[in-house]
């Protein structure tokens, strides 16, 4: 999506400032379209199958209980055929929400643990995390486009300037800033994602009043080493357990807080109960 924007910008050349709003506008449009139809999009991307109540009454019962506790409307419930235990939530608002669970997680979790996972996903819905991620992604993308454009304009502008007209130090600083800005934006996006995950854990406990359930679920996920097959970067952040290889992704770029930290936080809540 960003490649298309860059291509469009390059085609029109970096010389006109009027191209900026077109490029950013295009990026905005595509991000917001994917946010708006996020439930249908994610179904197609992950192969999730929407369930009816009769397909899994126990799961639906758990979701209904969380809806009663949170006051949220009932979301669409889907299943992804995958042995790795994981779950995600998406949808542009609580009325159009979708939560999905892998067959792996449905098989391995007990009632309280699965309800903790359901509550975590509904917490994402309640906190409008799809919207937050969309805004973060748009901002990060816009920064990337902007810095690219500025670099192009500076490159062309620099050539036309008279010799020795520019302060070289200023040039170096602006160059460094323009190169690092997109990286900073990605770091920020990851930090936001981590904070929202912690918030979802806390909101989940607010719904169920049972920190032990979610804590036990996370302990099971920590022990399990299988990873979901859908490992695309675009949807990595929405899974409850990060599907990206923990060793290759630096802590700063991680979309989830370390699972041991999450378990410890929940344990602390149990002590106070």
């Amino acid at each position, binding site marked *: 999506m960003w490649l298309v924007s860059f291509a469009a910008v390059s085609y029109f050349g970096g010389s006109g400032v009027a191209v900026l709003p077109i490029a950013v506008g295009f990026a905005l449009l595509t991000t917001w379209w994917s946010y708006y139809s996020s439930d249908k999009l994610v179904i197609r991307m992950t192969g999730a199958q929407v369930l009816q109540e009769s397909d899994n009454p126990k799961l639906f019962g758990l979701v209904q209980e969380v809806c009663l*506790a949170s*006051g949220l409307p009932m979301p669409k419930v889907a299943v992804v055929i995958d042995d790795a235990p994981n779950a995600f939530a998406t949808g542009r608002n609580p009325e159009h929400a979708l939560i999905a669970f892998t067959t792996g997680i449905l098989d391995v979790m007990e009632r309280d643990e699965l309800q903790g996972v359901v509550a975590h996903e509904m917490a994402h819905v309640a906190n409008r995390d799809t919207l937050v991620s969309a805004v973060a992604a748009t901002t990060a993308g816009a920064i990337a486009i902007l810095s690219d454009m500025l670099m192009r304009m500076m490159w062309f502008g620099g050539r036309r300037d008279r010799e020795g007209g520019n302060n070289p130090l200023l040039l170096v600083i602006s160059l460094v800033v323009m190169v690092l800005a997109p990286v900073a934006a990605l770091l920020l996006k990851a930090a936001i994602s981590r904070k929202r995950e912690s918030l979802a854990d806390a909101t989940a406990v607010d719904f169920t*009043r049972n920190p032990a359930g979610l804590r036990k679920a996370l302990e099971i996920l920590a022990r399990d080493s299988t990873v979901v097959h859908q490992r695309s970067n675009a949807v990595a952040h929405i899974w409850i357990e990060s599907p990206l290889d923990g060793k290759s992704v630096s802590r700063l770029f991680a979309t989830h807080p370390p699972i041991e930290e999450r378990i410890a936080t929940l344990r602390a809540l149990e002590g106070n109960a």
Partner: protein
Amino acid sequence: MELLIILGVAGLLVLFLISQYNKLIRLNVAVDEAWAQIEVQLKRRSDLIPNLVETVKGYASHESATFEKVVQARAAATSATAVADVAAADGMLTQALRGLLAVAENYPDLKASANFLSLQEELATTENKVSFARQFYNDNVRALNVAIKTIPSSFFAGFAKVTEREFYEIEDPQERNAPKVQF
């Protein structure tokens, strides 16, 4: 110039008034809705009971005292309307049901019957739903009562004709003494 400023300040004041009033109204309606949810779940449980009593009667016809308790408690629960009355009747019914299920323990044929098992399962899920509906109701009552008691919304409570609501407190003495298990 001064007139514009005065009008501006007055306008902001009016907006503030409206927002405080609306906040109280919204919280009050949320409490009403949460109460309606409790009633929906209690009714679901209530509807399960005649079936359950008949199934147990089929195997343990002479345990009339237990059945009477359940039937009476159910009648009381259906007729209660005020929060405290509903809570009390709910507690009595839970205790009576517990008695009925304890009696059922003595009849292995009954325990094995598919009908009884499915009713028991439905009762368990409905009890959970009642519990969550109660939790949601109490959360909303807390939000409303806090708004009524704290400044600045406390000034508007009378104007909005919104009064403090009662919490749904468990009347079941056994539930109060539920043991806390620490690992």
